């Protein structure tokens, strides 16, 4: 289930902030609109409407989401990280998402179209999206959820040395999962009669997630793509292992992009098993190089390309559009 990138998202119009002063009538309407939200949500909304300062936006957005989440799930939002998923973790269906959007539109005085909505999957997506709207910045690429087939088709690393079962990639980082099956060849010897996932392999898994980010999520120079065969490991710092990981454990991996400037990209990485911290890496640095981007197959006179041409598409492109 790969997401097709929506070109329309990049053409975002700046949102005119504070076109008219915030009147007492507006405050009353705002209070009514937010009557089922926390007082701090209302306060943040008032501050935003008075000043246009985007700093107040996350409190408003989280407050509105909280109001639509069933009470027994609200605690998840209290210390939510940006990876909290709207559907899977918070039970928000697409109709509730519409309710959230209508209220956010009303309160922040902006408008959001349906295409834009479809790609908001996590709390972080929503915050980033609204922030870009308010600042008039181009919208980020949405989080893409990549199944194993897709990962296998784009990664230079292949089984039996690929340590990702699934992954999601946003414009700022990536998350992945890997289940230690016990069948990994190196567990036969690491250790004798006591299979434990080597820390070096866990670091490798984080590195692989960073490679996937460079290939699928990173913003590149126009007309350029990062070459899959140009990415290599250069170094890492601040690595600590906190927990032994054994067959049956599901590793939850995450990396965030810290710096990216040709030819180096640096990430911070972490692995958890359930709620337990397993590995932390403060810096993982990879080197990479650009290649010419593959040319998009384009429609001729509004008609689709003949089948013969689409057969000629490189496998990577086919996979992305699948």
């Amino acid at each position: 289930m790969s997401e097709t990138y929506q070109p329309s998202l990049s053409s975002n119009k700046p949102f005119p902030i504070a076109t008219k002063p915030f009147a007492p009538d507006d405050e009353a309407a705002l209070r009514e609109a937010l009557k089922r939200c926390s007082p701090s949500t209302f306060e943040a909304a008032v501050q935003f409407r008075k000043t246009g300062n985007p700093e107040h936006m996350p409190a408003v957005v989280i407050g509105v989401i909280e109001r639509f989440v069933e009470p027994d799930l609200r605690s998840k939002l209290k210390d939510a990280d940006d990876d909290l998923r709207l559907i899977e973790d918070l039970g928000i269906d697409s109709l509730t998402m519409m309710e959230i959007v209508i209220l956010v539109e009303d309160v922040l005085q902006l408008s959001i179209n349906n295409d834009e909505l479809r790609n908001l999957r996590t709390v972080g997506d929503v915050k980033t999206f609204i922030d870009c709207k308010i600042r008039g910045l181009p919208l980020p690429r949405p989080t893409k959820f990549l199944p194993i087939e897709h990962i296998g088709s784009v990664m230079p690393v292949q089984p039996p040395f690929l340590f990702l079962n699934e992954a999601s990639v946003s414009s700022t980082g990536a998350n992945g999962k890997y289940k230690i099956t016990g069948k990994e060849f190196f567990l036969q010897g690491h250790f004798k009669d006591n299979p434990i996932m080597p820390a070096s392999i866990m670091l490798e898994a984080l590195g692989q997630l960073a490679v996937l980010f460079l290939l699928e999520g990173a913003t590149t120079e126009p007309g350029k793509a990062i070459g899959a065969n140009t990415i290599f490991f250069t170094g890492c710092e601040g690595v600590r292992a906190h927990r032994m990981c054994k067959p049956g454990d599901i590793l939850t991996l995450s990396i965030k992009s810290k710096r990216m400037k040709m030819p180096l990209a640096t990430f911070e990485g972490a692995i958890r098993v359930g709620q337990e911290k397993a590995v932390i890496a403060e810096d993982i640095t990879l080197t990479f190089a650009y290649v010419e981007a593959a040319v998009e197959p384009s429609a001729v006179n509004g008609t689709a390309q003949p089948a013969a041409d689409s057969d000629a598409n490189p496998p990577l492109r086919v996979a992305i559009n699948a």
Partner: protein
Amino acid sequence: MPKVYITGLGFITSIGNDSAAVAANLRALRHGFELFAPFQKPDIACKVTGPIRGFHTDSTDPEDWTWPEGYSIKRETIRSMAPHGLYAHCAFMQAVRDARLADADISNRETGLFAASGGSPMLTYFHHERMLRLGPARCSPLGIVASIVGTLNFNLVAAFRIQGASCGFSSACASSAHALAYAFEEISVGRQKRMFVVGGEDGNRDAILPFAGMRTLSLQTDPDIASRPFDLGRDGFVGTGGGVVAVLESEAEVERRGVPAYCELVGWGQASDGYNVAISHPDGTGSRMAMENALAATGIAPGEVDYVNAHATSTVIGDVSEARALRSVFTDKGARPAVSSTKALTGHGLSLAGVMEVGFCCLMMRDGFVAGSAHISRLDPACESLNILRATRAGAPKVVLKNSSGFGGANVAILLRRS
């Protein structure tokens, strides 16, 4: 053909919000009418309705609503409902308990739900006006499913995870009688083993007042005599709303579960006047044919019927037309079943009426009484040939006929037999 039984009931009505209260009020002929606050204005001539008590559903925002304790309903369930969706949801929960149904009995491919609703004029107006004023982008995504006529089946099928047949019926005041009748068909041809039949109406200003335009509402200011079917002084119906649910099950299912049944739904008949869009045929032609068809379909002779729960709504033309039909079917054949209209107590529930009144007949059969036709001080001479029951009579009726009629001259007659 498998027999079909009624095994569960739930009531949110103007005369009570559970079967015990409803049965007590039917027996004692206590009505549920009052001067309805929104109608106490100079430009509104109609003053009395049969409101639903214990609920607050005036707001167009379902999250403002309140309902009696004991019903746990989530925000995501209620957000797409009309007021009568809430009533019917509560009645549904009662009916499930009453029929002793487990979750697996409710959610399977052989259990369906048929519903009858007039939609929600209040919410239709609210959402439509908002759309025209603010544009569609500011409209609730659930405005449609909360408002339109299918709102009951949409909401309840989703809320209770119904997997069998589901459909809505729209024949105005015959709607829920049609829903019952076709639910009977689903079971008797073996397609389903259990059917929920749901009727509901908002019964608020927006649902009732449009009938003032037709001049069919009673203008009486005294709640004690506003609804008086078959009385010479009747001047129109009194509006009401609510939600009622009946559970129909096949004989095999009743035996398998070992539950008691209120009665057998023996069969039914229908016919149309082919006469006027809103006025019933003066001779009750369609109603007569519907009753004849029901009797023929079930093999029940007119003389076997010992109670008729009339459609009679307390309108000048309608009551007489039904009385003529009854005379033709029964009196002329030498049969004298007791006749009463319980709308004298509840008011006219429109789409809700058929299933609500079949529910009343079930309670009478279980508890052993026949509710009288209340509020008659001077019987209309046109109805004199009928055995119209003026007071409640002890003893359970054995065979009951329930009449329902709707706009367009649609008529349904349903036959029940005590099991």
